[in-house]
């Protein structure tokens, strides 16, 4: 019971800090808007209809609609990574000592931190749904219900990765490096921002071994499914590079989720283990 209460209060602090921090809230909203409208509308004409010629009814998936799930994913990933490595802030600003010297074990600390980060990750993902009507994406209740647990799982995995990286880091100087040299490349080679069609083979391999790919894929599936597209268009998606194919087999949502869950389980296990090492 004590452990559960401790996890709760560490979780609560994370959420409270997120909600109180205006700049983080604004950032988690402003960044995707920028991407969606500048990047999305700028490239849209060049990309044309992504499913053109595949569906006679002209199932309209333009580029902006295509990257929308990717941008939600990107936002969740960046927010989660930040939450995870914020453990380094706690260390640098002294608060971590207060936590570490309390009569609770470090597994509890890592779990509380990760669950807190996952919760704020879900919030950062869901917030973006308010942009959906502006780009002609419709929202259904079923879609939201499916998105919440999925976003949580994605966020949990990446927050764990953040905690893992932050567990031994002594200063915040490395933050930018991690964001730009680990997370951004993972996002770029995941199919979040461009269709995975006609990729050079080395890139294709990177995309397939990148766990983020399997986080973006189900997001896209859930959101596209809610758009009332004809079944024939949905079936075409992998072929159009809008879905993941592994060894000629179109990866299903269940498989996506299994892959992220496995990745998340490994990350949290290693994070807890690293965090338990005492100086």
């Amino acid at each position, binding site marked *: 019971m*004590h452990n559960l*209460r*401790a996890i*709760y*209060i560490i979780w609560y*602090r994370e959420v*409270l*800090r997120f909600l*109180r*921090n205006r*700049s*983080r809230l604004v950032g988690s909203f402003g960044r995707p808007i920028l991407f969606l409208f500048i990047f999305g509308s700028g490239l849209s004409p060049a990309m044309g209809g992504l499913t053109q010629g595949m569906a006679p009814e002209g199932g309209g998936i333009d580029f902006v609609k295509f990257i929308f799930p990717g941008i939600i994913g990107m936002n969740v990933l960046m927010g989660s990574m930040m939450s995870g490595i914020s453990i380094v*802030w706690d260390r*640098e*600003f*002294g*608060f971590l*000592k*207060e*936590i*570490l*010297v*309390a*009569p*609770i*074990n470090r597994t509890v600390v890592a779990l509380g931190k990760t669950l807190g980060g996952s919760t704020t990750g879900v919030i950062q993902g869901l917030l973006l749904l308010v942009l959906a009507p502006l780009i002609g994406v419709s929202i259904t209740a079923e879609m939201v219900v499916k998105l919440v647990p999925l976003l949580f799982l994605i966020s949990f995995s990446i927050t764990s990765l953040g905690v893992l990286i932050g567990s031994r880091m002594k200063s915040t100087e490395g933050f930018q490096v991690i964001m730009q040299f680990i997370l951004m490349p993972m996002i770029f080679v995941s199919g979040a921002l461009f269709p995975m069609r006609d990729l050079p083979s080395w890139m294709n391999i990177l995309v397939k071994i990148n766990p983020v790919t399997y986080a973006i894929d189900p997001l896209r599936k859930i959101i596209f499914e809610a758009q009332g597209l004809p079944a024939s268009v949905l079936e075409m998606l992998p072929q159009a590079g809008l879905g993941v194919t592994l060894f000629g087999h179109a990866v299903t949502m269940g498989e996506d989720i299994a892959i992220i869950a496995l990745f998340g389980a490994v990350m949290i296990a290693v994070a807890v283990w690293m965090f338990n090492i*005492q*100086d």
Partner: protein
Amino acid sequence: MAIIEVKNLTRKFGDLTAVDDISFTVEEGEVFGFLGPNGAGKTTTINVLCTLLKPTSGEAWLNGHHAVRDQAKVRRSIGLVFQEPSLDDQLTAEENLNFHAILYDIPASARAKRMEEVLKMVELYDRRKDSIKTFSGGMKRRLEIARGLMHYPRVLFLDEPTLGLDPQTRTLIWEYILELREREGITIFLTTHYMDEAEHADRIAIIDYGKIVALDTPDNLRGLVGGDIITVKTTDDQLAAQEISQRFGFQVNEGENGLHFEVQKGEEFIPRFVEQLPLEIHSISLHRPTLDDVFLKFTGRRIRDEELSAKDQWKARMKRQRRPHP
């Protein structure tokens, strides 16, 4: 058994031996002080005692619990005020204390009452709903002391409790510390590099380069220096030094401010000295030995407040008043 017992404790960081084979005990109810310059190993000792660092060798017991094998029990027995600030400045005073209370498993029924008690003790009860961001350095320190007391610890560790604070605030913090010792009857283990603060302790360990060089009550430590110290300046200090050692039989040292030597009952000695010294005296002064003199005697150096360079003082102050992080 003593409330703190330390046996041959050593902690190394790579090649550096930060704490070097120290042993001591602290009795229940004592105010025990660690006095030493920056880098002497005070914080490292506390970190080992509070289970944040593992000792390289040696052992320690707190409240009868082993510092390595019974970490959870040790942690429940102690309260800590770290050298560096450790509040969450995005939270209010109350939220900080509540966080602590839950981590220390204080039952919900007792939480509110205890929070009120400790907040009133440090006179922050009226500010309990305010964000830490709005607190001054001294208020943050007081809140940290209150927080350290929340879970009724048997020992309260205070690592440089007044570092980076202005003199008035320092005095105020000391009033709280001495008062809570009366009220809560707990053992206090504190570190400082301020001589005058060490005087408040019942017993002091003087620590330098990781070793305890002396350990006793402030009075006894001063007694080790010998008598009072007389500093004198004359027209010819060299001749005077000769005279003093031959005529009066004292060992004379030359310092920046003139010659100095130790005598018993200095105030009675001065008139006789002035009369008998066959030289013109420019100035003469007497001072009772301080802990700084004790430190000088054992290490050949002085710890002064300047020991902490102006830059470090500034840094410490900035840290205390720092803006919240994102």
